[in-house]
């Protein structure tokens, strides 16, 4: 690899997902197809320092289904996603030695609820306390799956998930591993909901990404996992990670650059690595948080990269909320699941385009659509921008 065109892009051979849409691929695809918000009012956030109780929480009863009762929710969600992904990838993992399988975890806050318990002097379970540290979550995931390869924990705000996918691909390309499980996870907590409330960045009625009258984001929670492996070991690849890029706006700690130039850099870097021209991209899954500045910045970045020939764009935030450090993995998993099912995701909450910058938004999910070359992008606090390009393999009939 010399910065343009990866010779053997790593293959994605297993997927797992847990979110407000449900547990597993089927429930997730059902929500994407229905194109309805899965945000709901959670009583825990009805009183206190919160702007809204409307969040993309896991469906009622989901934590019980995951077997999480009073222990680490971060671990329970991540473990469920990892198990799904490994089950799908099993035929391709069976001959790979354990010490050649690694793990990359992305999370912004790990089990921060246990830190809240520490401050309040209330009890927390032993594993919840340890899982204040992301490295302990990753170590437990490695141990429970008997992997022995390298482990990394990535935390770069809302681009963490995309950087984790990049890191997983790097581990394979550098021959440090033959396969790697990339898992992104973040869960709702007093810390996170109160934090975004202090910034006044939440829309009490639910986010409306790219809509002219958008008023802020909705928070969500969940986990997703993807198993990456060496292309020559992938007998049934679902997709390949063809390129990636990241950048910084170098402009403001919490607000995106006004002109989208920083994000455009990340997109151009990802396309360059893949050796693709912008015209080859068939679908863009945007960050699309629903804040005024983010969505406009993304529209301008897309205009810079694609000019007048913009591909269709949508975002998962209107359905799931913003899952922070998990978002990059969750949304990438959805891209692969949806493309393989012939569904181009829609953008619930979007109705009227912004006057100043309007990408080609897919409002309603479209079924029976064939597309394979996808650009996924996220941006975050600290002025960070990330992008990956995926090439999805057609599903065998």
């Amino acid at each position, binding site marked *: 690899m*010399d910065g343009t065109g990866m010779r053997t892009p790593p293959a994605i051979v297993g997927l797992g997902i847990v979110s407000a849409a449900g547990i597993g691929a089927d429930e997730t695809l059902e929500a994407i197809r229905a194109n309805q918000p899965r945000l709901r009012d959670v009583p825990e956030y009805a009183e206190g320092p919160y702007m809204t109780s409307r969040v993309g929480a896991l469906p009622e009863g989901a934590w019980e289904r995951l077997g999480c009762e009073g222990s680490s929710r971060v671990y329970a969600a991540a473990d469920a996603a990892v198990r799904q992904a490994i089950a799908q990838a099993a035929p391709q993992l069976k001959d790979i030695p354990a010490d050649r399988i690694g793990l990359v975890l992305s999370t912004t806050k790990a089990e921060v609820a246990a830190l809240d318990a520490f*401050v309040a002097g209330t009890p927390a379970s032993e594993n919840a306390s*340890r899982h204040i540290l992301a490295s302990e979550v990753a170590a437990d995931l490695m141990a429970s799956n008997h992997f022995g390869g390298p482990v990394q924990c*990535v935390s770069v705000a809302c681009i963490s998930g995309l950087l984790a996918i990049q890191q997983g691909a790097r581990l394979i390309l550098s021959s440090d591993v033959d396969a790697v499980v990339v898992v992104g996870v973040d869960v709702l907590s007093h810390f996170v909901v109160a934090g975004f409330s202090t910034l006044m960045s939440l829309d009490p009625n639910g986010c409306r990404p790219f809509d002219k009258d958008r008023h802020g984001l909705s928070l969500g929670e969940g986990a997703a996992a993807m198993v990456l492996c060496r292309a020559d070991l992938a007998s049934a690849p679902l997709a390949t990670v063809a390129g990636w890029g*990241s950048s910084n706006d*170098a402009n403001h700690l919490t607000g995106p650059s006004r002109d989208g130039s920083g994000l455009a850099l990340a997109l151009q870097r990802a396309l360059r690595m893949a050796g693709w021209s912008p015209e080859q991209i068939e679908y863009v899954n945007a960050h699309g948080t629903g804040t005024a500045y983010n969505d406009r910045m993304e529209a301008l970045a897309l205009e810079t990269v694609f000019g007048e020939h913009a591909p269709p764009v949508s975002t998962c935030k209107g359905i799931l909320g913003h899952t922070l450090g998990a978002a990059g993995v969750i949304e990438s998993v959805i891209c692969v699941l949806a493309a393989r099912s012939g569904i181009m995701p829609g953008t619930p909450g979007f109705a009227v385009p912004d006057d100043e910058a309007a990408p080609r938004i897919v409002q309603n999910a479209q079924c029976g659509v064939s597309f394979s070359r996808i650009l996924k992008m996220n941006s975050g606090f*600290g002025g960070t921008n990330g992008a990956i390009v995926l090439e999805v393999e057609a599903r065998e009939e």
Partner: protein
Amino acid sequence: MKNEVVLHSASYLTPEGFGNSSSGSRQWPGEDGAPADPMDLAGISWSSLFDSPCPRFGRMDLLSRLGLMAVELLGVDFAARSDDERRETGVALLTPTGSLSTDLAFLRDISPSTFVYTLPSSVVGEMCIRHRLQGPQLCLTSGSSGGRTILDEAAERIHLGEARAMLCLACEARSADAVEALDFALAKPSPFCWDVYALYLVQGAGGETPKEKTVGAGVEVRAACLDLCKAGE
């Protein structure tokens, strides 16, 4: 063919002192601005080390302050670099305890000005804003595993042509309540190193100082940093 990577300069801050690869090591003077507690770097003021202004310093959390000071100690004049070079300069940070000190502060004050620093990568953003850097981003909250270090990560970005230069840091923000929280989390004394180390890596033979070294695989930031600083004495 891989691009060659050179360690251009190094710096560090520890409770015992500070230093860099161009002027060697110095002990804290023990006067105003030095750490009040020998285990505490929180007491260091920007003006005690540098003449240049840093208007944002006062509003930053400890992790960002320490990271910015370590980068300033490198002595690299980023303002004199071309726009292209800064656009292709990235940051790779290792911080296993991350924003824990600030997380605890936020849980006590629930204020927006604290919340914006409750991400370990905030320091990466502060560095990029101050020096107008737009290259690849990375922040790892786990130590090296499988022999691959954060220095390897930074070097790889240059090797593969993703960046022309990289800042590479190992940085932790120690506070009494963070240590207590870690002891609570791990049910044992926390094993973390609280020193701060920074390296500036560039592509090819920079030829700017006689102390430059090429980068080997599997080297920890601390070892590379101290090695380069020792050579500067």
